[in-house]
């Protein structure tokens, strides 16, 4: 017989009270785990969507001239003598320290051209990279793949009177309109998109790049540092982060997360209060029993050990069940909370936190009741003596 046998037997044979105590902590910890898992999944979901949402770093040549613009980003003035980026140097982007965070690199050659008597903005792209970046693009016709294929913005198609399947002559070369973009509401609506090499040749810009859009996978990647790392490699370029969208989305998640923490703190407080009240009640109920322990020679420290050990076991039980239950609840709730969302998976560090929280809260809530129990006057506790 050791002191822990007393604690274990008390919990084992007073199952009703133990279930009540454990359930108090279980509810609190399960709530925290559920909220954490849901916000984690939400955060991942948003980040994944953002990763599919296009570029978040843009690199363009430095220029003080007037310029045409694309995507709200100022690019080197295509109508003036400007410096361009060297296409052959682009692979260097993948040599930065955070290269593992780089997803798509989509170079562009921009310039104006006269088509059917109208000046339009011509954009040469690497079709494969561009479509990987612009996942929201929708079009009619066939996805362009060949050097002679063109993708027309909806507005450009209207102005030029061109449709899918038409042939268009630009700078004396024939091109085939393989697709027309459905209206995007962005700069693409008014431009003609062609193959990078073909457009470079048309514009006499072989090996030159006007703009590079880079998609970084941003889960925990330091966009600002990546911008600096790229800028260091390309001192002639202006590298900027398009992180407003990301930031505002992440701010929303952060707000939800803060709110979740608030709710979790409240639930945990109520759970701890429940443990405190139950433990206080238990001490009052066990006054005689504690009197017996004291009478047969248990020290005050022994009484505290018995009660705190019970609290620790209850806390451990609440922590384990709360972690399991919280993850189960999150897995069940996420499809309802996040559209097409998936459970982010079990986070074992949250498991460690749940156990630590369960045990420490239970101990904290039981500290005063245990102290009070240990201070019971044995003769008062055993009035019959």
């Amino acid at each position, binding site marked *: *017989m*050791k*002191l822990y*046998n*007393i604690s274990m*037997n*008390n919990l*084992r*044979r*007073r199952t009703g009270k133990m279930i009540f105590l454990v359930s108090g902590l279980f509810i609190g910890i399960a709530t925290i785990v559920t909220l954490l898992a849901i916000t984690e999944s939400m955060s991942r979901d948003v980040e994944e969507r953002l990763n599919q949402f296009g570029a978040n770093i843009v690199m363009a040549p430095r220029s003080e001239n007037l310029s045409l613009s694309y995507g709200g980003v100022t690019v080197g003035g295509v109508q003036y003598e400007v410096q361009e980026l060297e296409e052959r140097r682009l692979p260097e982007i993948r040599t930065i320290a955070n290269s593992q965070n780089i997803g798509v690199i989509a170079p562009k050659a921009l310039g104006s051209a006269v088509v059917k008597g109208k000046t339009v903005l011509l954009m040469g792209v690497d079709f494969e990279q561009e479509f990987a970046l612009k996942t929201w693009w929708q079009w009619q016709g066939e996805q362009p793949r060949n050097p002679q294929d063109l993708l027309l913005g909806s507005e450009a198609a209207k102005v030029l009177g061109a449709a899918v399947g038409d042939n268009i002559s630009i700078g004396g070369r024939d091109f085939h309109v393989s697709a027309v973009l459905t209206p995007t509401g962005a700069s693409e609506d008014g431009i003609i998109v062609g193959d990078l090499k073909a457009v470079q040749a048309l514009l006499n810009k072989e090996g030159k790049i006007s703009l590079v859009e880079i998609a970084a996978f941003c889960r925990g990647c330091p966009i600002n540092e990546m911008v600096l790392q790229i800028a260091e490699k390309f001192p002639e370029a202006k590298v900027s982060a398009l992180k407003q969208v990301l930031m505002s989305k992440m701010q929303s998640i952060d707000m939800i997360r803060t709110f979740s923490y608030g709710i979790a703190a409240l639930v945990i407080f109520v759970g701890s209060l429940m443990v405190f009240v139950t433990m206080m009640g238990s001490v009052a109920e066990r006054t*005689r*029993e504690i*009197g*017996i*322990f*004291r*009478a*047969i*020679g*248990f*020290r*005050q*420290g*022994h009484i505290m050990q018995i009660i705190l050990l019970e609290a620790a076991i209850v806390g451990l039980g609440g922590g384990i069940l709360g972690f399991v239950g919280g993850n189960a609840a999150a897995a069940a709730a996420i499809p309802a909370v996040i559209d097409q969302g998936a459970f982010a998976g079990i986070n074992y560090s949250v498991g460690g936190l749940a156990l630590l929280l369960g045990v420490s809260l239970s101990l904290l809530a039981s500290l005063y009741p245990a102290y009070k129990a240990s201070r019971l006057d*044995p*003769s008062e506790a*055993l009035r*019959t*003596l």
Partner: protein
Amino acid sequence: MNDAMAQNFIEIKNVGKDYGSGDRSVAAIRRMDVRIDDGEFVAVMGPSGSGKSTLLSVLGGLNKPSRGDVLVDSLDIYGLTPEQRADFRSEYVGFIFQSYQLVPYLTVLENVKLPMAITGLKNRVQDEMALAVLERVGLGEKVSRLPDQLSGGEQERVAIARAIVNRPPILLADEPTGNLDSDTADEIMNLLTALNREGLTIIMVTHNAEVAALASRTIRVKDGVCIG
């Protein structure tokens, strides 16, 4: 134990115990001087409220007197710190409480092993000692039962087994036969008498003159003083 202290093993000198304070103070013990030798079987008799149970709790180191000294084996037990006094109780005193006071969620064996939970004895040794005393009190077959599965007499035996398992030199019993029928009371008293013959000093509070007659000496208490 000190052989030189075999005489006056327990000594209560000018002890008084008041409950409450000021005008509302009530004296449970006015003044008592008691000497008990090692190996004595002393019955304490007196009407309800006479202070006999208070005397027992003072003797057992559970209830600090308002005045006077209590010496056990020449140890001034109320000169000790509360934690040292707990150690004293563990080493010197076995209690048999009125209404048995068994721990309801522990089995018979566990209840008996309870005083050994703080001794550092190995579980195997604890089991041997506990089973030996349970055999002695005739409960060897019921070691796995919970207290509420036992009769009053059986619970009293468990209480006795728990009180003596640590082999303390002093046994303090508060109305050990108070809740028992006469046959069971006889069995319990036979057990206590046998334990006393083996050298255990017993101080027993009782209302029952027949039970008190089995003791080697009777101390009569009335209104907080010893009257004989």
